[in-house]
C-alpha cells in the first residue's frame, strides 16, 4: 500500500517529491514500521496520521491504511 508523507521542519527535503506523495509500506504494517523504514528514522520525534497525533508508544499498535496521510516532525520546542 501507499501512504502520503508530510515531512515538516528540517525533514522537508529528505526525500524526493515523488516518494513523499506515495511512499510504499507493507500492507497491514504499523506506523512504527513505516518510521523505521525511513533513512532519517532517528530524527522523527512526532507523528500524526490524518491530522491526529500518534505518540511514540502507540506507533507499534497503529496499523496504517492505504492512502493515509502521515506527518512527521523532528524534535521541536516552541519559542
Amino acid at each position: 500500500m501507499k501512504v502520503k508523507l508530510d515531512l515538516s521542519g528540517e525533514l522537508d527535503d529528505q526525500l524526493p517529491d515523488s516518494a513523499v506523495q506515495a511512499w510504499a509500506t507493507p500492507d497491514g504494517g504499523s506506523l512504527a514500521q513505516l518510521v523505521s523504514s525511513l533513512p532519517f528514522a532517528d530524527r522523527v520525534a512526532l507523528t500524526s496520521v490524518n491530522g491526529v497525533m500518534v505518540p511514540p508508544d502507540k506507533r507499534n499498535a497503529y496499523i496504517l491504511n492505504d492512502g493515509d496521510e502521515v506527518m512527521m516532525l523532528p524534535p521541536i520546542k516552541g519559542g
Partner: protein
Amino acid sequence: MGWQKKILRVDLTAGTCVAEPLNMDWANQYVGARGLATRYLMEGMDPAADALSPENNLIFANGPLGGTMASTSGRYVVVTKGPLTGAVACSNSGGKFGAELKFAGYDLLIVTGKSEEPVYLLIEDDDVSIKSAAHLWGKTVWKTEETLKAQHHSEDMKVASIGVAGEQGVYYACIVNDLHRAAGRSGVGAVMGSKGLKAIAVRGSRGIRVDDPKRFMQVVKEKNAKLWIDPSRKGLTKTGTLAMIDVMQSFGGLPTNNFKDVQFDGVGKINHKAVTTKDRNGHQNLITNKACFGCTIACGRIAHVDKDHFTVSNRKEYWHASGGLEYETAFAFGPVVGVDDVNALTFANYLMNEHGMDPISFGVTLAAAMELYEMGVLTLEQTDGIPLTFGNAEALTVMAEKTGKFEGFGQELALGSKRLCEKYGHPELAMVVKGQEFAGYDSRAMQGMGLGYATGNRGACHLRHDTFTQDFEDIGTTGKAEACKTSQDDVSAIDSVGICLFTASAWDLGDLADQLDAACEGEWTAERLRESGERTWNLERLFNMKAGLTMADDTLPPRMLNDPVKTGTAKGNVNELDVMLPEYYSLREWSESGVPTDAVLKRLDLGAFSL
C-alpha cells in the same frame, strides 16, 4: 572568573552612576542573570511598590558564561517588577547588547529612581554618563538606535531602547536591542519609560577571563559538537521555531480566534513552507537566518514584506529586510486573530520591533478586542472605523501601529487583555494568567502547559517550564505536576547561567555545569545548578507573595477550565488544574495555599525571606 565581578548602579533621581564589586556570595548561590538579578531586586525594592513608580528597580543582567565562546552566550535578562502583572518580571533577550554590557565590565546594571527629563545612558567601559534624550523622546526604537550610533560616530555601539509604547506606558511595551531582539514580556519597556530612560548605549573593550582557558576551550568544543549534531538544533537553524505551527495544528492546540478554537484553516499560508516558497508575485518572505551573539544555532529569521502588499506599497521605508516570523509571532498575528496574510503578519512583526511592544500580548489583546467587537460590545465608532473582525489583516496592522504610536483605539489596546476586558465588562474573555497573555499553546490540549501557565511567576508563559514532550505524548494530567516543577527549576538554572533555552534539547544541566566549572572558580555540578534553579523559583514566588499575589492568582481563565476543546487530539477536554495544582504545591513543599514552607526555605537558604 567568568563574571566580571563588577556591577553598575545608576540612580536616575540623584543622577549618579557608581560601580561596585559583585556580591560573590550571591553569585555562588544564584549563578547569574535571572537568579542573581532577582536576588538584587529583592534587596533593592519593596515588592509591594508600584511597578511604574520610581521605587521599582530595572536590572539588566548577564550570566557567568555571557560573552564567552560557550554557544548562545549572548543572552541577557531584564528583571524588574512588571506593570502588566504586578509580579516579578524577567524578560530574556539575545542579540549583542547583553554581551557588550559585559565587555564594558559589568555583570549587572541596576537602574533605580526616575529622571525628570528624558535621558539615555552612555556606557563606554568605565566612562558612564547620563545624557539628555530630549532629541530621542518620541522616536521609534529604530530611529533611536540610528540616531545614537550617528551621534557617537560608532556603528559598533550596541543599543537597547524603548519606543513611544514604552514612553507612554503601554502595559506590554518591551525593550528592544539590536533592532529586532527584545526583552519582550511583562511590560519591562513601560518600566524603563516610567523612569524617563529612553535608551542605553554601550561600547565595551574589557575582556572576559575564564579560570582555565585551555580546559574551557576543550569543553566548549565538545559541547558545541554535541549541539551541532542535535536534530532539534538542525531544525531550529533551518526553520526557526515556525515549524511548530504545523505541529500545533495537527495536534489541535493552536489557539485560534481568541482561544475559541484550536485549529486554524489558514495555517498553510503562514507556516514555514509558506515563508520559504515564492508566492505568485515571485516574492519569498524568508531570506536567511541570523545568529545572536556567540550562537551556533542561528534560529533568528530575516525576512521582508512584499513591496506590493497593501501595508507597505506606499511606504518605502519598510522595504528593507528585518526580523521575520517565529512561532510565537506567527501565532499572535495569525491564528489567534484569525489572520492568514503572511505579509501582514510580517509587517505587524516589524511594527512590534520598531515601536517596542510584545507581539504575544499585543496579538492576544487584539484577539480579545475582536471577540468584544463581534459580540457587539465594541462598536465601529470606538475602534476608529476599523472593523475588528477575526481575520481582518488591516485591523491587525493598523491597530499595531496605532498602539505603537499610542493613538486612537491603540490607547485602549495598550491596556492589555485583562484591563481591556475588565473595562468593557467581560473579564472572562481575557486569555491571561496574572494579567499576562497566553503564548501559542492551548492549555486544554496541553495539561502541563496549563499548569506551567497557572504557576508561572511572571504570569502565563511558555518559557518558564518545559513539558512539551510529556504533553505531546499524553493528553492527561498524570506526571504533569512533577514534569512542570522539575523543568521550572531546570529552566531557572539555564536562564541564570545566561544561556539560551534552545540549547536544552542537546545540553542538560551537566553540560552547562561542565562549562561553568572550567570558566568559574568553585565546583559546578548539575545538582548545584538544579538547587540554584529551585532557589530562584522560590525567591520569585516570595517576591510575588510580598507583592500581594496569592494562590488565587495561580489559575486559568474560565474558558480553559470550563469550555471543552472542540477539535483535535484532546477533543472534549478542559484543563484539569484542580487535579494538578495540589500535587504541584506538595512537590514544591509549599502549603496547601501555595506558600513556601519554612522547611523548603531553610533548605534553600531563603529563611530570611519567610513571609
